[in-house]
């Protein structure tokens, strides 16, 4: 593959950034859920 360093960097970087964003949301959601009683979590 020509220009492999640019192509692979782009694809890997995209994967890593999206995974890190998703993971941060999951972790922060868990932390927030732990700090709230279950009854409050589904309140509108």
């Amino acid at each position, binding site marked *: *593959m*020509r*220009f*492999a360093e*640019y*192509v692979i*960097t*782009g*694809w890997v*970087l*995209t*994967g890593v*950034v*999206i995974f890190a*964003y*998703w993971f941060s*949301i*999951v972790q*922060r*959601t868990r932390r*927030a*859920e732990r*700090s*709230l009683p279950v009854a*409050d*979590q*589904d*309140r*509108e």
Partner: protein
Amino acid sequence: MRLLKPQVSTALGWLSLVSLVVLALFGLWGAPPDEVQSDAQRLMYLHVPMAWIAYLAFGVTALASALWLWKRTRSSVWDRVAGASAEIGVLFTALTLVLGSLWGRPVWGIWWAWDARLVTTAVLFFLYLGYLALRRVPAPPETRAKRCAIAALVAFADVPIVHFSVTWWRTLHQQGTVFNAELSAHIHGVMAFTLWFGVFAFTLLFVYLLDRRYRLLALEEQREEREVDQAIAERIGTSTAPPAPPSPPTPPVEVGASG
């Protein structure tokens, strides 16, 4: 406090993941290299869908902001949708800029140019970064939602400028491959399929992330409210409680006493 049912959200998450894996297979191996740009063009399958989904995210932010501003539809749901969507839009715009730079280096020979499309996209990124900063400025919820809704509508004016920049000013960035002035797509076969599949995969990912981010915003607001309520309750409790009886005087300590 959810946009989607938990089962739907989970299914969407898995579907997004599978779609992104399929996209990687087509983008890196399935689609043929471009005649002119060779394999560097494989970055298009990320760069273009991501830019389009960033437009979509900012469009959702603008729509939700308008719905919040309109008194008949005003609801904190729209404020949260606007905030969640803008954050995803900023992430996708940042990736669009970085991927564009990685693509530009082998094709143009430079990482960055003061080109109309690049500059207007960078302006878009900073406008919505400012919007996210505005959301963090402490204020009563109603005031914050109002100022953010107005800011989101103003910032959205840059989206059509970004899109039409390649038509209005002929600089370095190529013109639209699909949504161009002639409305005739200059891409066909497996390459077109991969591009459209990328749009599909990133749309799924956007909806999934929007749902997750919305729930997180709602939980954080809930926690904040609870903390404020607790602080007020404690304050009221201490101000109405009877004064504590004076403590008995402590006997003086004998200096030099052993023991």
